[in-house]
């Protein structure tokens, strides 16, 4: 027994010595945002002089994800393909692939074809981190990263590894320079969306004096509430019911509680931010309890065309009461960008859905970044990041408002959005995706004048 414990003690001491010996002196604690070479067998470091598909020779620096000899660029997608947002994200991923297929057919990025590597993160943070680790040695940038807590979890790694990612969420923190060194957001953040929409509602109902607010727990709901509170105070609306972070979409009891809170508040305006199924349940319960006469709205994901499907009980009252908020133009909108999306989707033989636009928007941002990186001669991960962060204008031809990634946060945060009304008739006969656009590139006065310097709601 004594002999064995001696060996064990020796082993442990050896372990400690090993650990201390290495990192002690000098130390290489690269905790700051230094671009680090990922240790992997997939990527190679090369400075190559190459003729890219017969064009004039250029010296393009590459490290990971760009193979000049094979003529390929690899983009990664961290997508929720089996979790709560999978129906939307699958369509968004399809939108990416359609757009890149078209770009590749038109000659790619100066002759380099773009490949998309999608990984299912299941909307689970450890899985998201694991997928990031898997892809970071294979891709030059991330075309999207689904989920705010998940994107925050990899944010420190993105900064340490020097890789670009496009967040697939509209949390206002992505416009905050303290957080977004490696992120290029798009679309109006939840908090400014609330300001735009609620002020718009007061213009539709000038006598409105009270508002009921109910949102999901988490960044999505609380960022949205933060904006709603700001606009309520600015416009002098009384918050008759405050259900911030009271909604838990998996817990029916919270939906009933919120519905009764709204009904009892007798408010003139209602702002509910959650997913569409929970929203339908809350609206339905309030309606059944006799609540009526108010105008309803909520953050973009609260809406789904299924709410006004022909077999939906709430279809008629909802189409009178509800205003749909969106970050990009709906399917049937009349703009060159929308026309492009329609052509892509019809060519692929897929049914009309609004979400393809989101995939195309993300892909366009990445395309601009890649082209700028190519022109600058630096297609390393760090080069693509720098190129993206220096884009002055990314235009979407009317599909979405222009984005810019240079300048003061207050100047470049996105403030414009789209407003629609539900269109059950159009959905029933297939002429629309369930909405009719009424305001394009809209910003309310408060949304335009709001001083944005940091995130509306802190995630930690």
């Amino acid at each position, binding site marked *: 027994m004594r002999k064995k414990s001696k060996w064990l003690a020796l082993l442990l001491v050896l372990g400690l010595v*090993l650990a201390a010996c290495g990192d002690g002196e000098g130390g290489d604690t690269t*905790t700051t945002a230094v671009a680090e070479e990922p240790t992997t067998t997939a990527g190679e470091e090369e400075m190559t002089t190459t003729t890219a598909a017969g064009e004039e020779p250029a010296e393009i620096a590459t490290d990971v994800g760009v193979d000049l000899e094979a003529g390929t660029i690899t983009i990664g997608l961290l997508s929720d393909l089996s979790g709560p947002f999978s129906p939307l994200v699958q369509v968004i991923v399809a939108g990416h692939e359609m757009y890149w297929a078209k770009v590749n057919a038109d000659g790619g990025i100066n002759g380099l074809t773009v490949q998309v590597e999608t990984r*299912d993160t299941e909307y689970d943070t*450890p899985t998201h981190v*694991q997928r990031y680790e898997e892809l970071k040695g294979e891709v030059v940038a991330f075309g999207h990263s689904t989920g705010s807590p998940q994107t925050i979890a990899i944010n420190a790694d993105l900064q340490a590894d020097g890789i670009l990612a496009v967040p697939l969420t509209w949390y206002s923190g992505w416009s905050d320079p303290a957080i977004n060194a490696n992120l290029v957001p798009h679309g109006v953040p939840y908090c400014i969306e609330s300001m735009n929409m609620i002020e718009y509602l007061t213009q539709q109902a000038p006598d409105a004096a009270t508002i009921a607010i109910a949102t999901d727990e*988490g960044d999505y709901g609380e960022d949205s509430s933060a904006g709603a509170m700001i606009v309520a105070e600015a416009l002098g609306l009384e918050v008759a019911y405050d259900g911030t972070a009271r909604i838990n979409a998996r817990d029916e009891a919270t939906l009933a509680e919120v519905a009764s809170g709204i009904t009892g508040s007798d408010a003139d305006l209602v702002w509910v931010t959650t997913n569409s199924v929970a929203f339908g349940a809350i609206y339905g319960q309030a309606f059944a309890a006799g609540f009526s006469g108010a105008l309803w709205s909520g953050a973009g994901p609260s809406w789904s065309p299924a709410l006004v499907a022909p077999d939906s009980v709430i279809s008629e009252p909802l189409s009178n009461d509800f205003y749909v908020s969106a970050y990009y133009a709906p399917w049937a909108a009349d703009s060159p960008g929308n026309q492009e999306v329609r052509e892509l989707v019809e060519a692929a033989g897929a049914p009309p859905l609004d979400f393809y636009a989101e995939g195309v928007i993300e892909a366009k941002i990445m395309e601009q970044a890649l082209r700028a990186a190519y022109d600058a001669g630096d297609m390393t991960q760090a080069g693509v990041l720098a190129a993206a962060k220096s884009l002055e204008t990314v235009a979407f031809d009317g599909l979405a408002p222009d984005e810019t990634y240079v300048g003061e946060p207050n100047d470049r945060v996105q403030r414009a959005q789209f407003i629609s009304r539900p269109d059950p008739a159009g959905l029933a006969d297939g002429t629309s995706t369930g909405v009719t656009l009424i305001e394009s590139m809209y910003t309310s006065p408060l949304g335009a004048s709001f001083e944005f310097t940091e995130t509306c709601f802190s*995630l*930690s």
Partner: protein
Amino acid sequence: MRGRPLLHTSYEADQALLNTTAKRVMLGIFLLILVSIPFQIVPGLKFLGEDDWLRLLATTAIFSVGALGLNILIGLAGQVSLGHSFFMGVGAYTAVWLGGSVDGPLIGLGLPIWIWLPAAGVVAAVVGLLIGPTAVRVRGLYLGIVTLGLVFIGEYVFRNWDSLTGGGQIGRDFPPLQLRIWKEAEPIVDLTSPGSWLGVDISGNGKTFLVLTIGTVVFALLAKNLQRTRVGRALMSIRDRDVAAEIMGVDEFRYKMVAFGISSFYAGVAGALLASFVRRESPEGWDLFLSVEFIAIILIGGAGTVTGALLGSAFIVLLPRVVEDFTHWLRAIAVDGDGIFAAIANLFVATSSTDFGLVNAIAGVGPGLSVAQLNLVIYGLLIIGFLIFEPLGLYGIWLRVRNYWKGWPFTY
């Protein structure tokens, strides 16, 4: 005597954990191989040294610690417990209370790892001791329900205690795996960033893997040793027939509390390590599914044995990755190959949205199951299969193989 490894001539030899030369040699070789993995020396196993595999292996080590704890409770003491994820959560939130960053709106004292890691275990153990007495009143399925209730109580408390946990869906950052003496700015040992040990370059994940492997070896040794001590024998007698044990003089109350306490200590440490390794976790992470995963590990690996807990952890943690790689391999055959194999592969795998297949090769595209769903299906099938055909789990399979070759060629 040489050639007669199971003939023991002393008490120490009889009680030895590694009682045959073969066991000692094999364990030594295995540990050497494990240590060499981050340095990618062994041919054929070099792929394990890549960052994503190192993360999986480090996760296996953490799950092993938790599984060892649950094995002491289920395998050794025979108490059914579905509440393992609750104790892991308690450990993780104790760790973040003590070790979490002082800045920011959430609770955190910024203390170093040598305080918060043991404290995570101790606090979880104390909570386990409080639960222990319920095991005296109920047993079997009913104890399972009681511990199940713990999981839901835990979920509710964690979700509503925003100042500690960050609140539902949001979560918070956990203290990183770095060694400091007190609250200095630069850690002495930093497992999260790459560096060089003894002159050899190693990535952050590699360092974490090595340190966690050493930790797991220590915990496994302690768990294995428990079996041959007085406490271990008492727990085993309670497992076999607790009423008879009580009559014989084994204090049921005390030993059931001890079982819960020790198992919760392991769970607390595992929870703290898991949260720190993943860096950010929300209260939803400590849910029933995590508990079920541990039950699956114990059942598939083999209840009651340390080797079984380790085998089960490796199996469950690595299975999703193996299934995914296998799917990709099948897809490559279906798309690029020809002949009968390609046809069979095509049947299993859906290569596009219009191709028939059981599993979608490309994420999100196709009529079949996603890889994540396939994993869940395989999980369930494995648990059922092992319970019916091999109750001793993977360890049982290993025993059969070993005994076959021991008696070869006289296998009858």
